[in-house]
């Protein structure tokens, strides 16, 4: 579909261009007629003045052409004049004999176009009675003038008029473009506002909009609200299901652990151990699913956000993770900028995020081998805010897989147990806090997960 700008330009531009052409044509017609009439009048006037130049000397007609001239509007002296004076049905008195006369009888002055000696001429022919020395004669006068002066005049007029119209047209187009731009500005503002949004931002569009656009905005907002409700319902269902699964999974896990501790039969023990492992995994998945559901941006009430100390949260998360990290033969370290930034956030969610990042490093840093190195948690000042980073010195991740790590249930290594939600939750929590999670391989080896918080 054509853009609104193109539509407006076409609908403004085409009719105006057409109108301008019609105006030019009409002007040309009217101007030509006016100029021709004026020139014709003068031509007639000149022809009529010939009468006064005729006098008779001893019954012979003479013409004094000394003072004969035609003053025309545009001739500037370059118009060529031809004339022929003769008695009707009689002798030639003066002028150019070859100048063609009218073919019909004249009872009033007649204008006509004629060619003479390679010139396009406009001629007037008239007859008048001449009584000189009691002689009555009928004299025919033809005066012709080249049509060039009138054509030049018309052309000059038309050129000036066209130039004026062209300038006017350009001005009109400029004004139209500005008007279109101004008129479309609110739409552009809305487009930019939508473009800048994160994919998870379903907050309604706000701000002043022109009356014409308001229904559109309203529709967009209604659509977003419906999407938000739909996501909310899905997440609520997810949360409810996870919640309902917690107790049965706990029972399975507890009973298998208990029986395992009591049983001495090798095969039963092996099976029980497997059941226990599966229940543990299921429990972890249920837990992570619930967290995933609860940290969705749409479900987070911004009223619950409080000013939180990022370093204190990292300390808490490290304390929680320390035991299991050290039991896996790994080390944990916290490098925190002393001037701890406080930011608006949900402390429990942020702790989950840090925990998930530590767990991810702890479980996956070694690739196929168990990881035996150190995990560094760092809070650093960076341009335009703060950065929380969790780094390991493991084998890193294949570049092609990096981008997929935050997908739900995507697991780079299926041999290692995990819910497949850890990094998705971390990313979601980061987004909920207006931050961005970036995963990259470190130059010195290993993976760095960093969360950049805006200031």
């Amino acid at each position: 579909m054509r853009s609104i700008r193109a539509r407006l330009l076409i609908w403004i531009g085409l009719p105006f261009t057409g109108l301008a052409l019609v105006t030019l044509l009409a002007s040309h017609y009217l101007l030509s007629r006016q100029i021709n009439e004026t020139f014709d009048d003068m031509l007639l006037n000149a022809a009529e003045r010939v009468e006064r130049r005729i006098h008779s000397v001893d019954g012979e007609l003479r013409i004094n052409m000394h003072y004969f001239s035609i003053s025309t509007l545009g001739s500037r002296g370059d118009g060529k004049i031809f004339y022929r004076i003769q008695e009707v049905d009689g002798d030639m008195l003066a002028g150019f004999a070859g100048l063609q006369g009218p073919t019909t009888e004249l009872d009033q002055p007649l204008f006509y176009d004629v060619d003479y000696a390679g010139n396009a001429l406009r001629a007037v022919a008239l007859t008048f009675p001449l009584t000189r020395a009691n002689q009555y004669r009928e004299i025919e006068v033809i005066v012709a003038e080249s049509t060039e002066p009138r054509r030049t005049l018309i052309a000059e007029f038309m050129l000036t008029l066209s130039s004026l119209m062209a300038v006017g047209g350009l001005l009109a187009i400029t004004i139209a473009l500005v008007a279109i731009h101004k008129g479309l500005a609110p739409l552009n503002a809305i487009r930019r506002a939508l473009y800048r949004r994160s994919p998870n931002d379903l907050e309604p569009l706000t701000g002043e909009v022109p009356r014409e656009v308001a229904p559109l905005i309203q529709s967009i907002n209604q659509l977003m609200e419906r999407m938000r409700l739909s996501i909310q319902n899905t997440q609520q269902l997810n949360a409810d299901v996870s919640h309902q699964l917690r107790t049965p999974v706990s029972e399975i896990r507890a009973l298998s652990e208990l029986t395992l501790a009591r049983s001495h039969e090798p095969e039963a023990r092996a099976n029980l151990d497997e059941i226990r492992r599966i229940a543990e995994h299921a429990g972890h998945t249920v837990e992570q699913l619930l967290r995933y559901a609860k940290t969705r941006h749409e479900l987070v009430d911004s009223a619950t956000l409080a000013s939180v100390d990022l370093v204190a949260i990292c300390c808490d998360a490290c304390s929680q993770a320390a035991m299991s990290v050290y039991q896996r033969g790994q080390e944990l370290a916290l490098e925190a900028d002393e001037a701890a930034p406080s930011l608006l956030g949900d402390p429990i969610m942020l702790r989950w995020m840090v925990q998930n990042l530590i767990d991810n490093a702890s479980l996956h840093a070694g690739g196929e081998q168990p990881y035996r190195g150190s995990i560094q948690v760092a809070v650093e000042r960076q341009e335009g805010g703060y950065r929380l980073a969790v780094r390991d010195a493991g084998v890193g991740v294949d570049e092609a897989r990096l981008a997929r790590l935050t997908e739900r249930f995507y697991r780079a290594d299926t041999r290692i147990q995990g819910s497949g939600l850890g990094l998705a939750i971390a990313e979601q929590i980061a987004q909920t806090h207006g931050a961005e999670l970036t995963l990259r391989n470190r130059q010195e080896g290993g993976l760095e997960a960093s969360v950049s918080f805006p200031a």
Partner: protein
Amino acid sequence: MKVLVVEDNDNLARSISAALEDTGFKADVSRDGLSAEHCLEIGAYDLMVLDLGLPELDGISLLRRLRQRQDNIPVLIISARDALDQRILGLEEGADDYLCKPFSLDEVAARAKALVRRAKQFGGETLRCGRLEFHPDAMELRLDGKPVALHRRELEVMEYLLINQGRLVNKGQIADRLSTTDDPVSHSAVETYVSRLRKKLGVDVGLKTVRGLGYLLDPQDAG
């Protein structure tokens, strides 16, 4: 040591109490809040394991009542409800620790032991961790049964680490524990005590330094 397990789910109640008995507790089970309150009034318990979703009287209300009448029994909460609101609520109402379902029985036993140990940290019970043994009455630390000659401050640090074994302890907590109003202890002093402790013990007893955070005495790596 007596523990009261308040849990309305039979399987969980049975499993938890069995696991705690394996750890050395004597366990009683209550199925609802009201009977739990009754049990607490007559029996002297060292610990309560409390499920929050209970019939009759819910867990949080029971906990609130207990704390209102100055009963300081250590309480470990077990809940199917999630952390976002419940954890804070539980800890604010005076719970000492919190476990979310699903949990492992080992975790329940370890937390239960730690809670009792912390509640009795002035109580004079012998503390053990791998090759280490600490006798609070005599203020004596033994390694493989042989006494180690330590300064009083070093012994206090060791006692605190043993009480909190398996948990990350930061320097501030140790400094607070050691400090008196007349004699404040700085973070760097804590570092000195710990490094001297290490030197005098001479062997790895599972005491880790967690850079930027503090110390961790790992009972499973204590030799």
